[in-house]
Structures are given as C-alpha cells and as structure tokens.
C-alpha cells in the first residue's frame, strides 16, 4: 500500500485538527481543575499564636531588599492595639482581637492566602501574577501597568501598592517565600515562629493535620478549616477556637473562585462579535430594501402617470368635470324651469277654479 505525499499530509492535518478540537471540547465541557498536585501551604493555628510579631520580623528579614525596617521595632507589641492590614512595607501583620475568646485575646496573622485559583491572577490584564507549582502566587513587576484591578479583585484585601512612587510603583504582596521554597528552605515567617503556630508542608498533609487537630482536641477547635473552600480554596489554611468572623476573617465569601465569577460575563463577550454583524446586517438589509421598494414604487407611479400623460389627463378631467357641471346645471335649470312652468300653470288653473 502506498500513501501519496498529499494524502499523508492530509491525514496529519486531520489528526492535528482532531487533537486540537479534542482539547477545546474538554476545556469547554465540565472539566474540573484540581490544582497543582503536591503544592505547599502553611497551616496557621490561632490557638497557639501569642502575638509576638516574630513572624513579621522574619518576613522583613528575608525580604529586606524590598521591605524597609519599620519605624516602630518588631518587639514593640503596642502596635497590636490598633487593627492593621498589609501595606507596601509589610507583607504580613498580626492583629489582636481582645474580645474574641473567653480565654483572653486571640491573635491572627494576615498575609496573602495564595488562592488555588487567585482572583488577582484572574483579574490581571498583563498576566503579572503566576500561580506556581509550589503553590505560591508570585508577582512580576516587569509587566505591571499599575492599574490596581488585582486589589479590587482580592477578596482578602491583600495586595498593596506603592502610592508614593512616582514612576515605577509596584504591587507589594507576600510571595510565600517562593524562592526559598525552591531552595528547600522554610518561608521566613514559619521559620521565625517560636510557638509552632505556623506549620509548613504539602497542602493535602496540612489539611489532614488540621482535621486531626480538630478531632483529637475536642472543644478546642471549631470544625472549620478556613481556606479549604473559601473562594475556591487557598494554600494558606487556618484553624481557630473562636468563630472566624470574630477575628476579622469573613465567613460570607462563598466557595466560588474568582475565575468562575467572571467566566459567564467573559464568555458572553464573543457572542456579541458573532451576533451583532448578523442582526445589524439583517436590519440594514431590510431598511435598505424598504428604501428600494419605496423608491421603485414612486418611480413606477411616476412612469404610469407619464405614460397616460398626467398633464393632458388632468386637463381632460377638468374639461369633463366642467362639461358635467354645465350639463348638470343645464339639466337642473331645465327641470326647474319645467317645474316652475308647471306650477305657474297649475296656479293659473287653480286660480280659475
């Protein structure tokens, strides 16, 4: 059996198209992305945190190229009295919730949660954010335009911006120490924690550990691992003994990831490109045809008028009408005269009688 060159190329082309279409069909179907296998994460245990701010210091130390030393030193715990959020000079902050639990204050560390399907990455129009296989969500300042849509999109209010830089402001955000993880080191904050309130590991192991903690310490933890499902899940996980909403963590975020929230609107966009030309082209064709028909009818009417000679016809009509009028008038007058004559005659006779 011999295969011609053309036939061979045709077959290859068909195979290529099948592969391509197969891929598309899968993406458009009910395909579910489970996330990278074996990604890392951190489990934060609020029952163990003592609010020492060593994690903040550790973070600054490993990121000292980007983060300046704070004006108030890290061992000053008075800053815990006011609520704080991440800022362009602090990737992570610890907040104190004095009235959160019956057994004294509860401390919570705040930093990027490294979502499984990050809102920031989904929102970025220059792909400045990357969800890495390590689990870390990292930022690339080399393409960033500085539109700050990532900050609008993040449900945890994490990304921050260098508002006081005139020409090259960056988005500032925790990197989960992605470069250190690649070197086999722990994230700066985890390494600095003296109480094991932070544990680093594979996300699936951390989830199991969290469940284990909850199960083997009855009454200590609430049965909720924050970050397992919130906004589609995150690589940073939390367990606590008090309701999350009491320690500044929103419980109403839902489990739908950011890409899913915008997927519908984004998918509808190309429909406009497909439908409008057809619809508007149709409307244009109809209105154009109406114009044409109207013009043709007017022309035909004019033509018909000309063939009969509108002017002469009009004249004839006028003449005919005039003639008719004359005749009618004559006839009426004749009748009238006759009647008058008859009446006069009748009167005359009557008078005689």
């Amino acid at each position, binding site marked *: 059996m011999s295969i011609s060159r053309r036939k061979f190329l045709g077959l290859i082309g068909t195979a290529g198209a099948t592969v391509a279409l197969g891929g598309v069909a899968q993406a458009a179907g009910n395909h579910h992305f489970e996330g990278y296998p074996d990604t890392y994460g951190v489990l934060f245990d609020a029952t163990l945190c003592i609010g020492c701010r060593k994690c903040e210091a550790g973070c600054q130390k490993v990121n000292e190229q980007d983060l300046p030393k704070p004006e108030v030193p890290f061992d000053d715990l008075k800053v815990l009295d006011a609520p704080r959020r991440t800022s362009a000079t602090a990737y992570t902050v610890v907040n104190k919730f004095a009235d959160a639990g019956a057994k004294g204050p509860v401390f919570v560390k705040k930093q990027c949660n490294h979502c499984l399907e990050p809102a920031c990455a989904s929102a970025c129009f220059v792909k400045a954010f990357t969800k890495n296989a390590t689990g870390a969500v990292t930022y690339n300042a080399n393409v960033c335009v500085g539109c700050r849509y990532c900050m609008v999109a993040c449900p945890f209010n994490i990304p921050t911006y260098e508002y006081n830089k*005139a020409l090259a402001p960056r988005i500032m955000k925790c990197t989960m120490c992605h470069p250190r993880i690649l070197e086999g080191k722990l994230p700066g904050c985890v390494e600095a924690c003296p109480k094991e309130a932070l544990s680093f590991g594979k996300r699936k192991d951390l989830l199991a550990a969290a469940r284990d903690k909850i199960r083997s310490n009855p009454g200590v933890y609430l049965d909720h691992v924050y970050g397992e499902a919130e906004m589609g899940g995150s690589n940073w996980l939390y367990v606590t003994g008090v309701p999350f909403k009491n320690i500044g963590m929103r419980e109403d975020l*839902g489990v739908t990831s*950011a890409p899913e929230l915008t997927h519908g609107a984004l998918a509808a966009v190309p429909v406009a490109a497909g439908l409008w030309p057809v619809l508007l082209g149709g409307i244009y064709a109809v209105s154009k045809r109406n114009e044409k028909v109207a013009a043709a009818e007017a022309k035909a009417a004019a033509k018909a008028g000309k063939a009969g000679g509108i002017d002469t016809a009009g004249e004839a009509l006028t003449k005919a009408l005039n003639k008719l009028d004359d005749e009618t008038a004559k006839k009426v007058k004749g009748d009238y005269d006759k009647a008058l004559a008859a009446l006069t005659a009748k009167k005359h006779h009557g008078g005689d009688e």
Partner: protein
Amino acid sequence: MSDQSQQTGKPGLITPFNIFAVIVLIIGAYLTFLRFTQGLGSITHLSDNNPWGLWIGFDLLCGVALAAGGYTTSTACYVFGMKRFHAAVRPAILTAFLGYAFVVFALNYDVGRPWRLPYPIFVSPGTTSLLYEVGLCVFIYLTVLFVEWVPAALEWLGIKKTRDVIVNKLTLVLTIFGVILSTMHQSSLGALYTIAPSKLHPLWYSQYLPLYFFISSMFAGLSMVIFEGSISHRYFHHLMDEEHKAGFNDLILAFAKGASIIMAGYFIMKVVGISADDNWAYLGTGYGLWYLVELFGFVALPSFLYAIGVREKNLKLIQWTSALTVVGIMLNRFNVSLVAFNWQLPAADRYFPSWGEFGISIFIITLLILVFRFIVTRMPIFYEHPQFKDSHH
C-alpha cells in the same frame, strides 16, 4: 466691541469661560507635575483598601457611558435607515471620539506606569481579565471613532480622495464595528465588578451587571446627544446649517422616545435582578433607600418624563429630562464604583476624593471642551462642507 462680536457670533478671546479655562489649565498643570514627580499618594485619597477612586468612577465609567452617543446615533442613521438624523451623526461621533480619547488620557494619570498601557495588547495579554477585554475594545473602538471622525478633518484640509473612500466604502462597516465593540466594553465595564461580590453591596452586585451597564449606556448615549445638542444649539447656533437646525427637534423627539422605552426596560431588568438574588430585604435599609432613589428618581422618573415630553411634543421638558438622565447615569456609576463598593468597611477606611482628584477631573473636562470648540469652529461638524454636499453615505 462686545456688540459687534455678538453680531458676528465670534466672541473675543477674553470671555468668562476662557478665563476659567486658563485657571483650570494652570492648576491642572501643577497637579500633573505633582502626580508624575511624587506619585498618586501626593494628590489622591486612594489607599490599599480603595485602589479605584474618582478617576475610575467618573473619568472612566461615566466618560465611556456618556460617550455612547456615537454608536447609538450612527446606528440609528446608517443601520436603521433613519437618514433624517444624518446631520446629528457628526457631532455625536466627534463627542464620542473626544470622550474616549480623554478617557484614555485620564487613565495615564491613574495607572502607575502609563507608558505600559499598550502592554495588555502587545506584550503580555491577560486574556482571563475583563479589564483586558475593556482595554482591547476601547483601543480598537478609539481607532474606529478616529476613522469615523477623520472625514471632517479631511474636508477641512481639502483632501478629497481619502475622505471619499472612508465615507463611501467604510461607513456601514465602521458603524457595525462600533456597535460590536461598544456592546463588549460597555458591558465589560460593569462585569469588572462581578469579580468582587464580597465588596460590592448586594443591591448593586448582580450577575446582570454587564447587561445593566450596556443597556444603560444606550439611554445614556441618546440622552447625551439631546443634552449636548441642546447646549451646542445655544453656543454654536451660528455654525449650524439649515438641515442641522431643522432636523434637531425631530431628533429630540425620536431619541427621547427611544430612551423612554429603553429605560422602562432597564427598570424592569433591575427589578428582575433584585428578584433573582432575592435582595428585597435590603430595600428596607439605608442603602436600600439610596437604591430606590436611584431607581425611581433617576430611571423611572426620567423614563416617564420623556414619555410625556414626546406625547405633548414638549421639547423643553425633554431637554431637562436628558440632563436628569445624564445625572442619573453618573449616579449609577458612582454608586457601583464608590458608594456601594467597600460598603462593609468601617467609615474611617472609606474613600472620598481629594481636591487634587477633583482638580484633575475638571482639568480633563475643560481640555475636552476646548478641543471640541477648536474643532467645531473650524471643521464641518454642524454643517455640511459646501464642496461635499449630498455626497454623504
């Protein structure tokens, strides 16, 4: 002197508006200097919690919505075959073109590295982002509007050949392009907020946001043509030819009728939206009251007033209603981007624009008006160029 200038219809250089404009330009130049030497923090109240402020809420969202007169008017004229509105197309296209051009200009102040604005399209396209979709469409649409506007400039310059090609061959294609691109980015501006259900108040958050933004852009565009046309008739009356003057009343009635019907439909869609998310309970709150003010005062009321104006042929009423509608659109965009956004944050963390932000916004509007005036007093916008009479599409 002033009598004479009024007679010729050409006021001198020193007018109240010009004095105001010069002051605004000086302040604007100073604020621009601050912005590009000390960063956004120096002249804005933007913060990590409130990354988008007046320049997005007003300059971008309102600017784009109110520039919708371009696609609505050209579609009515060229696609729906309402040729009698031909004289209104040029002013509408010019307004839209300048509107979009200044939206992009304003973005240069807001984004951190404006010279990278082409990046999303040419360097690193982030196709999962609705902002990418907005950027791409605005970029293409600005080009389309430029090509739609450029015949006026070519007539002014006396370049016949290129002008004839654009007018005779491209008008319909450009118009349909305009509708496609407008549908996409007008709706996508609303869809930007669908990513943040936890930040936008439930009454304003809806999966229908893209639809709301697109539909409202239609009556925004129609109303803006009436509103801006009325102002132009006051200040540029001497520039208008008979066709333009004669057609305007007819246009007002037709556009008011269209806007009234679309607003009625929009009202129903908003109610459906509340129903779909079962947000009725929120109507009893303070935000609910504010929502009802927007819905009844700035959608239902103008829809009704337009209808009365059309029925009674009351042009004055229609013109005032167009102003009300324009204010209503701005209110809606402010509500989505500023008032109802971050509604759960404590008052201390909420945003209110700084004087610098107001200053830049006023600076940009003033620039727009100056360029608009420069063009209409020189190029055939309100009248047909004698050399090109009856040679339009």
